[in-house]
């Protein structure tokens, strides 16, 4: 009977309503986590600022500049890309953005006959590059939504190791920078060597405190301090990138889930309309059948016909 279609539609609407509840919940969760992740980004700023300051003071304060981490290599043969994405999907184009950016760089490297190494951070990113058969180093993951400094330390140490062992000549970070809840961008930032960073700073020496750098008293000597400091500096930068990526992930997920909720609502509306029409059609058809049946029986009395319709409607 025609009622069959109505039942199918009712089932679909119910399932969409259930999905809508889930996407709505995810949207709300992400929205509340954006604020927290944004707070974490802010909370990490004082440390980054201070450590940059210390590196600057050290480089003007007599530390010898011949640290491997500070020196760029003349010939860049292999570049390592640390690609920071999410552990889970359902976040719109978030993962695709960083993956595409990294892939573009890699293809350019391959064209120039250079080597590359992908270090994926986040399970989804790992799957993406593994499936496509890219050369991969150690993969990190499991913390994309709330990274701790410990995670950054591991990645930083690994990056420094890759560079100092000569396996790669350059390490770049690919991540999504969080500008505001409504605005994020995929960026590519050099991580190691640090020459570009400190070099720029040495040129424009500024002393906000008015203290000449050479007056610093070092304990132990500047070079030893720099040796412990530089890996920390790398880690702090990785950490900042991870926090930015986490905040961006929440923002992307919130947007994606909002769109999904809106779509579900739209779909429910459309399907309800189709269902109501189907029901109306079924009723009309039934009445027509009854009228037709009554006429076939030869009854001309309208009252009798009405009785027949009522009796059928009561069933």
């Amino acid at each position, binding site marked *: 009977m025609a009622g069959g279609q109505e039942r199918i539609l009712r089932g679909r609407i119910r399932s969409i309503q259930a999905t809508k509840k889930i996407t709505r919940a995810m949207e709300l969760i992400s929205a509340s986590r954006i604020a927290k992740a944004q707070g974490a980004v802010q909370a990490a700023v004082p440390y980054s600022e*201070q450590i940059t300051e*210390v590196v600057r003071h050290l480089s003007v304060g007599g530390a010898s500049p011949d640290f491997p981490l500070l020196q760029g290599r003349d010939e860049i043969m292999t570049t390592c890309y640390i690609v920071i994405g999410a552990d889970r999907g359902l976040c719109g184009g978030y993962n695709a953005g960083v993956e595409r950016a990294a892939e573009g760089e890699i293809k350019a490297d391959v064209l120039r006959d250079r080597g590359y190494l992908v270090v994926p951070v986040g399970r989804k990113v790992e799957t993406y590059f593994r499936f496509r058969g890219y050369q991969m180093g150690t993969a990190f993951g499991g913390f994309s939504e709330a990274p701790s*400094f410990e995670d950054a330390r591991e990645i930083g140490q690994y990056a420094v190791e890759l560079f100092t062992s000569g396996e790669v000549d350059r390490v770049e970070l690919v991540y999504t920078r969080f500008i505001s809840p409504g605005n994020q961008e995929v960026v590519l930032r050099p991580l190691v060597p640090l020459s570009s960073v400190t070099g720029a700073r040495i040129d424009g020496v500024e002393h906000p405190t*008015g203290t000449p750098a050479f007056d*610093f*008293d*070092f304990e132990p000597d500047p070079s030893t*301090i720099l040796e*412990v400091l530089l890996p920390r500096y790398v880690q702090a930068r990785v950490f900042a990138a991870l926090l930015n990526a986490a905040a961006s992930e929440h923002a992307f997920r919130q947007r994606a889930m909002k769109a999904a909720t809106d779509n579900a609502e739209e779909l429910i509306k459309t399907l309800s309309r189709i269902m109501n029409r189907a029901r109306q059609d079924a009723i009309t058809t039934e009445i027509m059948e009854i009228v037709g049946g009554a006429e076939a029986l030869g009854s001309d009395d309208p009252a009798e016909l009405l009785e027949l319709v009522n009796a059928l409607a009561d069933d």
Partner: protein
Amino acid sequence: MANTMTVEVVSPERLLYSGEATMVITRTLEGGEIAFQAGHMPFLGALADSHTRIITADGSVIDLAVHGGFVEVGGNTVSILSDAAELSGEIDVARAQTARDRAQEHLRSEHDAEAVAALSRAHARLAAAGLPPR
């Protein structure tokens, strides 16, 4: 009243303390304990695991366990950048004690750098939490 200076303690994840103080005592690698007062000459040092004390402008003492990092003094500001740091109230004493006992146990049989580091971290935590060394 003694002169005061600005003191900041930051870890990678947050700002632990920021305020006016009269003295900061911490420990550098190789150098041992060192105290800073207002007007100290510019100084930059790498820190060891230590029980760091801040004597604030109103005379109260803030105890912290600082696990490695750096201290920078300049322009009447002392900044401590630690890899990890805890205020005395946040320290899990029971956990630090088990960590200390385990490290000591381990060191009796063999000497390894990890256990030494664990022991010094535990000592710094316990000292900052106000427990006497054993």
